[in-house]
């Protein structure tokens, strides 16, 4: 396991999630992913579209059931929970969705959107329920009078705050935030990221932060996992990953991000990744990155590299190491 410490809250073990397309085609969205998350940390999950990062997040919270492998929350296999245990698990683990326009019911008031969670888990009724809703709105930087309004009356950033308030309503310990800022303008992104940081400190939350914006992931995360075509290709503490990326894909990915500083940008050495991500329905044999890798050797076409420790706390799935 990645961290053998006792404070591990979440373990994802050999997780696979396949989707059946028609009769024959199988999309292997997540194919054998293993990692763990410690209490209080922010675990960043990055990769390009179609790499399976969202599927991992959704499987963790139970929106998908795994095809194979396990998700252990505090040592318990989440797919084996029954009845009341499921409800208890869902109170502990919440999700913030990517699109604040699609993830709020347009026919419900903000108060009911947040209150629904309180009702389902029987956390508060009547006056107390209203007080809780007002409190939650305050926590995320909105005000009590917003409770009677509908989602369409809010801007994207405000809607994302409503989504966060809804997730916080049940007092969770663990939040999976799936691209929570990618639909927002930059000045608003900073507001939401700072809010997430503050909540983590105040409430001792643990996050999985899923994003394609590597600069933001670096800013927020303690550990980062890089995914490519359903696989975790590299895993390291955030600072280490950005300073010393080992996997050729991570190197190319980091190099591709333009830095908002023209002098730095001019002097950077660039590693250009040729071509595009192959289809996950029919991934390349051997290492999945071999078709775009500048270091590809014959072995890479034959054998699929396993994620292995290369430096202390730093894991990579590559035949170079």
């Amino acid at each position, binding site marked *: 396991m990645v961290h053998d410490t006792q404070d591990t809250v979440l373990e994802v073990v050999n997780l696979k999630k396949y989707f059946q397309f028609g009769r024959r085609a199988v999309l292997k969205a997540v194919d054998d992913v293993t990692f763990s998350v410690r209490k209080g940390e922010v675990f960043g999950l990055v990769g390009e579209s179609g790499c399976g990062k969202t599927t991992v997040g959704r499987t963790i919270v139970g929106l998908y059931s795994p095809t194979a492998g396990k998700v252990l929350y505090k040592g318990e296999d989440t797919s084996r929970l029954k009845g009341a245990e499921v409800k208890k698990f869902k109170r502990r683990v919440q999700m913030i969705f990517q699109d604040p326009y699609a993830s709020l019911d347009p026919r419900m008031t903000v108060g009911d959107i947040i209150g629904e969670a309180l009702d389902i888990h029987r956390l508060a009724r009547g006056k107390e329920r209203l007080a809780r809703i007002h409190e939650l709105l305050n926590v995320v930087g909105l005000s009590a009078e917003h409770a009677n309004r509908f989602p369409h009356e809010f801007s994207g950033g405000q809607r994302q705050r409503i989504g966060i308030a809804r997730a916080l309503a049940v007092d969770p310990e663990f939040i999976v935030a799936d691209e929570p800022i990618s639909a927002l303008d*930059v000045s608003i992104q*900073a507001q939401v990221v700072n809010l997430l940081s503050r909540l983590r400190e105040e409430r001792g939350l643990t996050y999985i932060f899923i994003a*394609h914006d590597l600069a933001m992931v670096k800013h927020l995360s303690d550990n980062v996992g890089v995914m490519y075509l359903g696989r975790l290709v590299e895993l390291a503490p955030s600072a280490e990953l950005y*300073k010393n990326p080992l996997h050729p894909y991570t190197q190319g990915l980091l190099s591709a991000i333009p830095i908002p500083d023209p*002098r730095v940008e001019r002097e950077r050495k660039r590693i250009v990744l040729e071509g595009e991500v192959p289809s996950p329905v029919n991934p390349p044999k051997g290492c999945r990155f071999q078709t775009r890798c500048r270091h590809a050797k014959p072995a890479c076409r034959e054998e699929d590299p396993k994620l292995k420790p290369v430096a202390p706390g730093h894991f990579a799935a590559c035949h170079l190491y």
Partner: protein
Amino acid sequence: MAGERLLDVKNLEVSFYTYAGKVHAVRGVSFHVNRGETLAIVGESGCGKTVSVQSTIKLIPMPPGKIEGGTVLFDGKDLTAMSDRDLQSVRGAEIGVIFQDPMTSLNPTMTVGRQITEGLIKHQRLSAQEAKHRAIEMLSLVEIPNPKERFRQYPHQFSGGMRQRVMIAIALSCNPKLLIADEPTTGLDVTIQAQILDLMKSLQTKLDTSIILITHDLGVVSKLADRIVVMYAGKVAEAGSSEDIFYNALHPYTQALLKSVPRLHEETKRELLAIPGTPPDLFVPPKGCAFAPRCSYAMRVCLDHQPGDFAAGGSHTVACWLMDPRAAHVRERHAGRAGDAGARGGAS
């Protein structure tokens, strides 16, 4: 011929008449593009960056849109005075456009080849054979593998990045003097974005085209832009060379924008500067400076009077009352904080 103005837009005013009232989307915007340079127009959604640029060649839907004032000089011609017919010979031929979303801006029912040859036949009066030859040349210029086979395929057979390459091929097929690229890489993955940006850069040197790059991504701007216009709420907040804007930003909005994004190369974590509040509603444009309600330096004058453009050396202009000589004492008081932005930029 660097330095000569290819496009000169002055005091452009554009409104949209909707059922809910008039939205004053562009409120007196001036900018220019020199020959051979890349001008980036930066701003957040709704700031009017796309509308400003698209209005210059009347690409906005009219109605509900209406150009209510201003002049647009392109290569010596006044585009605002031109008939729609004449304008059609400018669009596509002299000004090429790449739109944000290559999924929806290509025609799904036409082969990619026909979409490229269409403009060539119309504007350059090439024969079908010549146009095909040129289109295949264009496809290989934008580095699409197997251009001959690709010529016969439909957009759905292309990936997102490849579609954007097709868009670029169409836009550049008639050798335009100006290329308008509206968020050309938004929605593409970063590794594909890097490929497209490299391609645009190399094509610009090869074909000597001027580019207007509309984007919200400061990273993309730093990679491509020679000069930058920062827009906020339908107005130009600050304009200047790339160096001016990144290392000597004087408008509080520009400074805040630069501090609100994390930088990959920085080792230390600093708290991101969030700009409180949201941009104003342009149904009721603010009386004074549009940024004043969110600005930590706002003075009384900012709320009631719109600032003019203050010159800050070279082509650098700033629309902010702090630049007024009478605000010198306010500037000094904030010097510690404002100097912060400059110092950080300069040191990196």
